[in-house]
């Protein structure tokens, strides 16, 4: 199996009709792509975070070190917090809707 075939297998759809939620189904499709990008950006950000931590800790860089890295409790907390803030940042438009809804209900 070559790389492309493996990626096709990884990306296989589950059987069953995929639901659409928006009146225009293209919106569902676009959102799925945007959200996949958001995920991959988080992946990149996390890698960078690791590189920075390793560099500051050891003053050197070795790719094997990156894969072996395990955050300590403090780092895990900071990284999780970043994820939450990042997600909140991306969902700005939804937050605005929620704020409006909460304003309406007097919350």
């Amino acid at each position: 199996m070559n790389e492309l075939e493996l990626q096709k297998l990884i990306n296989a759809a589950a059987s069953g009709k995929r639901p659409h939620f928006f009146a225009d189904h293209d919106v569902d499709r676009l959102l799925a792509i945007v959200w996949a990008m958001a995920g991959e950006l988080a992946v990149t950000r996390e890698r960078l975070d690791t590189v920075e931590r390793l560099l500051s800790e050891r003053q050197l860089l070795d790719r094997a070190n990156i894969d072996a890295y395990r955050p300590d409790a403090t780092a895990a907390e900071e990284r999780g917090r970043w994820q939450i803030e990042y997600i909140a940042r991306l969902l700005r438009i939804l937050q605005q809707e929620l704020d409006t809804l909460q304003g309406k209900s007097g919350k």
Partner: protein
Amino acid sequence: MTDATRLGCAPPWTEAGQHAMSPVATHDDIARFNFLANFNKFMASVVVTGNAIAFKERAAPQWHASHGAPPETRREIRETMREDPYYRMWSSLRRSGMEMRQQAGRTLVLRQMAALRDRARALTAAHPETLRLDPTVSVPRYQSELDNHCMPGSYYAEYLEGDVTAAANYDAGMFATTTGLFGRFLDGAGRGTAEWLRRRRPGWTPTRILDLGAGLGHNSLPIAQAFPEAEIIAVDLSAPMLRYGHARALGMGIQNVTFQQANAESLPFEDGCFDFIFSTMFLHETSHSALRNILGEAKRLLAPGGVQVHLEQPPYRGMGAFEQFLRDWDCQYNNEPFWSALHDTRLPDLMVELGVARDRVFETEIHALVEDEMPKVSTEVEDYGRGGMWYACGYDS
């Protein structure tokens, strides 16, 4: 909006328990799970709350205006909410999250499918007698028609002989999906069940135990550890789950579990040969007729003086229609076709129909028991269908 900085965050995937069958994860694999876990947490604690407001302020009044009465059933609520832009966005994101979780898990395990298969074989070689695969067992149509909770190939796909990737993917991803609420080794339900049994029957030790729909046996293992003298039979339809689960258990040094491929509707065991029978989050994946057959088999197999208990998400009865509607999302949009019917079923009544005396039947609640440093369900907002607490129904024979 809730102040995001006040929210707890999900434990990183590196906190998930490592064992002999754990796939080798790169930094990117781990980061994908970390993103998904925190996304799930944010969705379940912040974003979901807007649905109730959208319903109250927009969808319900709209329905009322066009129908002359407020929406009353969960179906009416779904019909009107499907038109609401906030619910659409939440649902579309949630569905994308489910698919991305599969993609992340498959990215991790499929590239090393041969290595995982070989490792499972090597571990199994030490105790081949406790893995009983039966190639004559066929996957019933109700299981093969739809891939369970959007897992491509469901529990059954085999991409090479002896494949274990369906299980490896399930095992690796669930820590992220449940944000650690099931514990490091996903065994919180089993540990909770063992503790529940100790309290219900102090000093009692079962000798032969059956775990129905055990999957990779993640909840069989804490029962096996709680009763080290007992023989546990973990039954499932899926060979990949059993192969992987068997190797995983042996890698943890647990040897009193036999992983057996069989259809729980018709089991190859003698009447009354188990004194403790249980299942965890299994019944909602069975069709109406299969459910009857499975509970019938469980009744046949339970020894006098024994006990059986089945853990599930809470039934819909007694729940408000809006909560039912939210909990029903998985049935409509996450390939859980029997979810609604199971949660509308009165399991105690079904057990009585099958001949169990009413006064023997009980209903209770069982919570996940997890490591001290893992998040606890009581302090968490529940992501409907994924919280670490369960309705439990069973009976003493």
